[in-house]
């Protein structure tokens, strides 16, 4: 019944309806979880769902939490910009499921049941009977998670904006928001009223359902989000392959492609007009080269041609906030130059040209390694980075506290077994197909080097309108939104559990009544979320960099000590502390050093290896050395955790 109704609307309304239905579903789940909460032991239910996750819940919450916005925004952009080599960049997802769940899962679950631990710091504290170690873990967790939450909130807002941007209702709401906050000191500094509106909608939604429903709500919304994500990929894959003329054709065309140039242009209109004119972002313009051949450029921002004038040069373009010059991307593929229709009435002239640092003018770079790169002379994926990323996705995933918490929560080892299998199939259905889809996107939609992060919504629109079901685009664009939401909710809960359990209940007020703990839990979850939301009103730049920084920073601090404390009886408390500190500091130093060298959030990469590798290695080495120079742990602990009772 609803289908013809939606089909009659533009795809933008589809997006709004999908979004509303989706949010309604999320809140229904939260209400249900809240019901369950009142019947169970509060803390272990609120933070762990009473350790009762079944296969589907376990596998999908895992999948949804680890697939953040990056998987559906940044990753497609990478495939689009660098071609087939990204298949190797992401290739270790072939072993991620079995490694991330299977390496530590059984032991984490067993030990946390044995000790009654509810959080990761809890578990470390109990394993070594050391409140100091627990406190250290809590500090690191809260440190990284806070950064990450702010960045994720920003990502959520940006994605929601792109989902709703063509919606009239949204546009008027954004204007209304703008007029309200114009005079509020802190809020008026925000990026745009639209950003603020989406941030508030996104953040309040997440904060409310997470604090009201707890872990069970988070897990079941994750399940829903996981289904949305895989559904999006399964719909897009056959369409992308079909419309691009088959996979062989796609790869053959990609082999013929040469990377574009980044150029600065001057634009001339053929005739003057009494009204000022706007040439919109993404327009194609014809260029004349010195030898008279035709060229083609695509502009990276709106440009304005003033009234009674035919020329826009760098100087007048500056007035329309383009940073003093008109930037564009110049296509170098002959077949595309012939087939793409530029807009009539304007001619552009290239005044400055920056070719790719690797791959310029070369064919076959999009189908081989190291892949074309705008800025790195070694290419996108030199061998050392290929090695780094193969390690990083697997071991960084294994070291994520968000994943470890889920391993405390499954029902029994049978759930773990089937969970591994389900996750293996799930990731295989997502990651490799995404590579295929966005290779096809290179053929279907040339020139999105102007704004690679938009390739996902653009391809969704293109495929569904070609297929005759434009409203489905709303559903597809919901996938990245779902991905961010499912990451944020679990991080929010990890931060608040660290504070309530590890700081308040175990250190400040051990005798607090259940009622106090309850009130404390709700308000801390709510407060952390609100604080991160307010911080995200004027968010930091380098969004993706912060997410990567905090994500792998958590693993370098936690993976080695936790893996060793689960499997090595000789591992000692000082070694656990030293290992955690070594992982943390070496990682932060590499980034800090990089920050002062490059003046941006980029780490030093000794020998071209990712800082994750170096920090993880130092954490491991320090752990082993300190273990052997400190006395063996007391026998009671070894007995308790490694021997039959």
């Amino acid at each position: 019944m609803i289908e013809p109704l939606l089909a009659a609307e533009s795809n933008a309304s589809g997006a709004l309806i999908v979004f509303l239905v989706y949010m309604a579903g999320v809140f229904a789940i939260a209400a249900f979880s809240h019901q369950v909460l009142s019947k169970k032991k509060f803390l272990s239910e609120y933070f762990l769902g009473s350790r009762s996750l079944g296969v589907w819940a376990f596998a999908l919450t895992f999948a949804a939490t680890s697939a953040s916005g990056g998987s559906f925004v940044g990753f497609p952009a990478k495939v689009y910009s660098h071609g087939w080599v990204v298949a190797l960049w992401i290739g270790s997802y072939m072993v991620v499921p079995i490694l991330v769940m299977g390496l530590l899962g059984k032991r984490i679950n067993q030990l946390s049941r044995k000790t009654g631990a509810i959080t990761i710091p809890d578990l470390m504290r109990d394993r070594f009977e050391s409140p100091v170690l627990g406190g250290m873990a809590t500090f690191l967790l809260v440190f990284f998670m806070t950064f990450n939450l702010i960045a994720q909130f920003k990502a959520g807002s940006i994605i929601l904006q792109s989902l709703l941007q063509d919606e009239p209702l949204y546009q008027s709401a954004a204007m209304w928001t703008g007029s309200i906050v114009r005079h509020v000191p802190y809020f008026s500094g925000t990026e745009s009223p639209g950003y603020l509106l989406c941030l508030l909608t996104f953040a309040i939604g997440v904060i409310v359902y997470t604090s009201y429903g707890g872990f069970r709500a988070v897990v079941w919304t994750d399940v829903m989000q996981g289904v949305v994500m895989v559904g999006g990929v399964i719909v897009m894959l056959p369409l992308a392959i079909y419309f691009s003329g088959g996979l062989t054709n796609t790869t053959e065309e990609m082999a013929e492609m040469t990377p574009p140039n980044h150029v600065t242009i001057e634009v001339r209109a053929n005739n003057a007009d009494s009204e000022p004119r706007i040439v919109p972002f993404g327009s194609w313009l014809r260029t004349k080269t010195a030898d008279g051949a035709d060229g083609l450029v695509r502009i990276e921002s709106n440009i304005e041609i003033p009234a009674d004038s035919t020329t826009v040069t760098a100087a007048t373009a500056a007035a329309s906030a383009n940073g003093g010059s008109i930037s564009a991307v110049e296509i170098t593929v002959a077949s595309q130059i012939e087939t793409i229709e530029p807009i009539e009435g304007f001619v552009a002239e290239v005044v400055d040209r920056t070719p790719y640092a690797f791959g310029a003018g070369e064919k076959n770079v999009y189908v081989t390694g190291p892949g074309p790169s705008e800025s790195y002379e070694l290419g996108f994926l030199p061998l050392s980075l290929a090695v780094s990323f193969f390690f990083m996705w697997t071991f960084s995933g294994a070291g994520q506290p968000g994943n470890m918490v889920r391993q405390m929560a499954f029902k029994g080892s049978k759930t773990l077994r089937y969970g591994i299998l389900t996750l293996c199939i799930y990731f295989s259905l997502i990651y490799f197909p995404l590579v295929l889809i966005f290779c096809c996107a290179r053929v279907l939609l040339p020139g999105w080097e102007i704004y690679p992060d938009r390739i996902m919504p653009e391809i969704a629109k293109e495929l569904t309108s070609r297929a005759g079901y434009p409203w489905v685009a709303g559903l597809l664009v919901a996938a990245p939104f779902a991905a961010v939401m499912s990451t944020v909710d679990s991080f929010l809960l990890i931060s608040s559990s660290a504070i309530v359990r590890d700081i308040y209940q175990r250190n400040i007020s051990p005798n607090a009544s259940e009622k106090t703990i309850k009130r404390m839990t709700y308000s801390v979850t709510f407060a952390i979320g609100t604080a991160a939301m307010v911080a995200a009103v004027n968010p930091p730049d380098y969004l993706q960099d912060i997410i990567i920084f905090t994500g792998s920073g958590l693993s370098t601090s936690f993976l080695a000590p936790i893996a060793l404390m689960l499997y090595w009886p000789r591992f000692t408390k000082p070694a656990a502390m030293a290992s955690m500190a070594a992982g943390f500091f070496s990682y932060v130093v590499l980034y800090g050093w990089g920050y002062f060298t490059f003046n941006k959030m980029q780490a030093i990469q000794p020998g071209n290896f990712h800082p994750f590798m170096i920090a993880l290695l130092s954490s491991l080495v320090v752990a082993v050395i300190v273990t052997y120079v400190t006395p063996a742990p007391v026998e009671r602990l070894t007995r308790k955790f490694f021997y039959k009772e």
Partner: protein
Amino acid sequence: MKTEKDHPQLDPVYVHARREAMVILGLFVVCFIWAISVYYLDGYFPAQSVTEVHILWGVPRWVFFGICLPWCFSIVCTFVFVFGFMRDDDLGENDENEDEPENESK
């Protein structure tokens, strides 16, 4: 009784989990070497221009042999691991006092 206390037996869950972890790390190493070496031998051209690229089943040959094949291999191994190797162990009951701040007295 006395001998058991002097020579306590390792917890079987620990023994199984350790063995399973070793197998998983082994699978990682195999996939890692497989994917990286195919990339190095057939897909990696840092210095010279590439004149010809072989395509197999719609994807570049190095992707087929270096990504698709080990990926399938890994899926098969995961099946075998889950159904034929990984043990079902009793991971213990929920602690009755887990909501309490100090519960390791058990």
